[in-house]
């Protein structure tokens, strides 16, 4: 899709080759990715290098084992299927709608959605709830204690009416209570 087929770019855009500062390291890496595997396996280079640490594995008879051959056959089959499905026809400009599996794959198998729904949004609710609880609940308790004292003192203040008659009455009531208590105790 990227490298073969018809050109798809705009008239004004000019895709060009990368400058040497990008291509030179990539050439080195390309040589490495092709040749490194063979280089390490042939003549038991990697195995003898790691030998003192890992011990020497049992000797393999060449690269062509049943498992290796089967894997290679699978690769060939995969390439064939891809060519049959995509390589022969023109790749459309807009991505097709695709079936359920394709859509799920495009959405990271809904990994992000699960994360957001299960962890992120409840986390946000928990945070907001905690802030509210702290401001109203825990702090509310503290402020309630303060308001209780303030409110009750504001109400109790009203006992002081400023009228001498109320004070005289409360003194009389107090004196009656005292005398009554003495009499009761005597009896």
């Amino acid at each position, binding site marked *: 899709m990227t490298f073969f087929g018809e050109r798809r770019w705009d008239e004004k855009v000019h895709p060009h080759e990368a400058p040497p500062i990008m291509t030179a390291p990539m050439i080195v890496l390309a040589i490495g990715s092709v040749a490194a595997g063979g280089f390490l396996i042939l003549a038991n280079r990697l195995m003898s290098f790691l030998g003192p640490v890992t011990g020497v594995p049992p000797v393999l008879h060449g690269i062509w084992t049943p498992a290796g051959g089967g894997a290679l056959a699978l690769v060939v089959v995969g390439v064939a299927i891809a060519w049959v499905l995509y390589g022969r026809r023109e790749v459309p400009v807009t991505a097709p709608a695709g079936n359920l599996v394709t859509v799920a794959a495009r959405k990271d198998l809904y990994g992000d959605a699960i994360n957001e729904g299960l962890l992120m949004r409840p986390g946000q609710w928990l*945070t907001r709830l905690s802030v509210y609880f*702290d401001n109203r609940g825990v702090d509310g308790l503290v402020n309630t204690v303060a308001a209780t004292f303030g409110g009750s003192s504001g109400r109790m203040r009203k006992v002081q009416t400023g009228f001498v008659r109320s004070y005289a009455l409360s003194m009389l009531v107090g004196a009656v209570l005292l005398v009554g208590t003495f009499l009761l105790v005597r009896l």
Partner: protein
Amino acid sequence: MSTFPWLTVTGAVPLVGAIVIALTPGRSAPGGPADRRARDLLVKRIALVFSLITLALTIVIAVKFKAGGPRFQFQQVYQWIPQFGVHYAVGVDGIALVLILMSAVLMPVVVLASWNDVEDVTATVAASTAGAPATPGARAPRTRSAKSYFAMMLVLETMIIGVFAATDVFLFYVFFEAMLVPMYFMIGSYGVGQRQYAAVKFLLYSLLGGLLMLVAVIALYVYSTTGGHQGTFLFTQLSHLTLSHTTQDWLFLGFFIAFAIKAPLWPFHTWLPDAATSAQPGAAVLLVGVLDKVGTFGMIRYCLDLFPSAAHYFTPLVIVLSVVGILYGAIVAIGQADMKRLIAYTSVSHMGLITLGIFAMTSQGQTGATLYMVNHGFATGALFLLAGFMVSRRKSHLIADYGGVQKVAPMLAGLFLVAGLAGLALPGLSTFVSEFLVLVGTFTRYEAAAILATAGIILAAIYILWMYQRTMTGPVRPEVAHMPDLKARELWAVGPLIALIVFLGVYPKPILDIINPAVHSTLVGVHSTDPVPPHPATAPARSASTTSKVSKTGTGKITSLAHHQHGQGKQTRRKQGSSA
């Protein structure tokens, strides 16, 4: 051993500085605004000089302190009120010394950072009332006096040194209550926003705790007179008192609630966000960086040593409250829209970690907790100061009012990032060492608590990094587009803190060497030993440490049983010697 009264002199120097400031010409002196600015500049310079002198004296004390020597050094005991056995007794052990060091380092930093705070507030008040219609009889807004602000800062420093250095419980109580007064004025008179509400709440809440502690202190005195002895308030003698379990429980509660309010421990924390938001950044640094440590210091010094069985009895409760505080403080911090309030809630979370480390009753936990007290003072102090620099430029506390500051003020943003990373205990910075020690020390006894507390680290990453992302990264908001970067004075203020955060993160040994023996003595005093590891090392060629969780700072030596038993034998003899 010289008998020069080091601690008294160090404590008196800031007070002398405050008196000198008070004697400078004040508002009634003649002259226009230029003269007033010159007078304010003189006041600030005096404050800076005296705080630097105090720092120098404290460093001298720290250098002369013998880490492996007697528990309390630089002791002085004078009779104060003989009828009640009250003494003026000062002395420092390792824990008190590092906390005094931290306060002495923070004070010149705060003086430098608060250089323009008083004028800023006056300007803000004037600007906000300029547009209001003139009411009949209204006067111009009172300009706040820089003289009182800096004088109160120095008085606060004296009280702080007194609190940490006092070895007489009565003297400790006096300083404990007295240090509230300058702080109340600093918040209530010089703060912003709902400053009077915040200041009164702070004062009354702390006084309530202090009154409960007073009851316990008086009860301690009464119990010390049983058996016909002369009653005493001296800590070294009171720690030998044998009290019944019920008595210990009640007295422990009296002390503990006062310290829990001060620390603050959940659910006694609600005064801190309001006070820290309303205070100027410098005052907030002192509030969160130093005053809070008085609470945890009281726990580890007084609650544990005076009431060992009660400390063990209440440990599960404290562990639960600490873990709740860690997670709750972090979650609520994530949801804050105000920068300073967010940092205040992070402080609640970190203090939960400190109390967790103290009450895990392991040497690693308590060493980590004490180290955390020092590191948290620097880290949260730096964070508050940098947030304060941003606020003084943009005049807004809200995170939403900032954006893209790192493009405009890269130095500010960079230091803010370092301070924030210290807040989330990034390895390589000082707070990681202490947090790691606390978590390891707790895990050996209470795995569930340690696991839940470790989750707090993830929450810390959320609140710090999200705040950094919203304020510093992203598109530059037009209102912050012309924000100037850090000035030289601000760099001198916050630079030492950042440097200490990085240095102590790589090389915490000097501090740990002072703390370890003191923690050892405390553990002996609370009749606790480190838990035996399940799989001791079998190879004799290995070092003396027996746990596999040796931290790189060398504190693994403390957890080795052999060293502990040997040390215990030495310690008992040392204790008897110091109380004679």
